[in-house]
């Protein structure tokens, strides 16, 4: 579908995704409104977040119809950000531990 004529898809696709994004946003707002806590809170937040991000990137930004070469060039590099997040999470945990253990003034 990605030709010189550009990305052309029926309008119903966009309206459907728009509606879905509304519903998913309402769900993530409900997570806070009804004060879910603990495991159910962050797992639901992450679930709705990834669903919304996936719909925006794949449909609104047309990633689902792009050439494999472009999809890989854009979606693979952020993988190293996962490493950064993992490292900083471990490091942050350690910093908190040392502060909690050795700081006199908390």
């Amino acid at each position, binding site marked *: 579908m990605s030709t010189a004529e*550009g990305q052309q898809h029926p309008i119903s696709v966009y309206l459907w995704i*728009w509606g879905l994004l509304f519903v998913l946003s309402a769900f993530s707002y409900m997570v806070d409104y009804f004060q879910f806590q603990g495991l159910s809170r962050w797992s639901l937040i992450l679930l709705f977040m990834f669903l919304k991000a996936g719909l925006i990137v794949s449909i*609104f930004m047309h990633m689902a119809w792009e050439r*494999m070469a472009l999809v890989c060039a854009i979606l693979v590099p952020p993988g190293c950000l996962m490493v950064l997040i993992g490292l900083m999470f471990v490091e942050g945990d350690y910093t908190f531990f040392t502060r909690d253990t050795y700081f006199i003034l908390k």
Partner: protein
Amino acid sequence: MASTTTANPEDIPSDGLESLIADWSSDQRAFKKVPWGKAMMWIFLLSDTFIFTCFLTSYMTVRTTTTVPWPNPSEVFALTIAGNHVPLLLIAIMTFILISSSGTMAMAVKFGYEKNRKVCAYLLIVTALFGASFVGMQAFEWTKLIVDEGVRPWGNPMGAAQFGASFFMITGFHGFHVSIGVIFLIITATKVWRGSIELGRPGFMTGRAGSYDMVETMGLYWHFVDLVWVFIFAFFYLW
């Protein structure tokens, strides 16, 4: 002249792993049939992804390392409407506005490729208005936090001092992106409206002939702004 073996465009595999290998091993350009403006916008957005992830990662780091309780965003961003205390109301409205602007933007791209000049321009203007109202609400939110609640980048009355620095940095950078996007939406809408793109005239700040690919490239930037907000909403406001 030496004979050159130029691949027939019909021979290039159009999807799957074969197209990946064909594209990367080809000469002259890697992303066959992709307008270069779109490829460059994607690469810019990739770099922007790294910037925003660095912001959100540093926010995660200060939040996990502080021994002082983090201010509860649900309370900090609550609004009292007619005596009712509603948590995160303004943020929810801002989220819906940004999603709506993404919807109108996606349709503007579609009507652009259909050469429906007027509808495309109208939708771009509606998108810009949504964006401008988003920035307006953000200004209101910042004012409320700074003036009424005394939040500063170096401290606040509610808890961990890093709250203000993270908040102003992340939402400020995002709001800046929205503002720039609104400006470029107005420029794009003007070009579409007066037919510069349809007639292929050289446009604003460029000598290259206008084409409706430009609307799609504009759309990529705008959807990205919405995408970043999805992550900010989840990690900063809901977490």
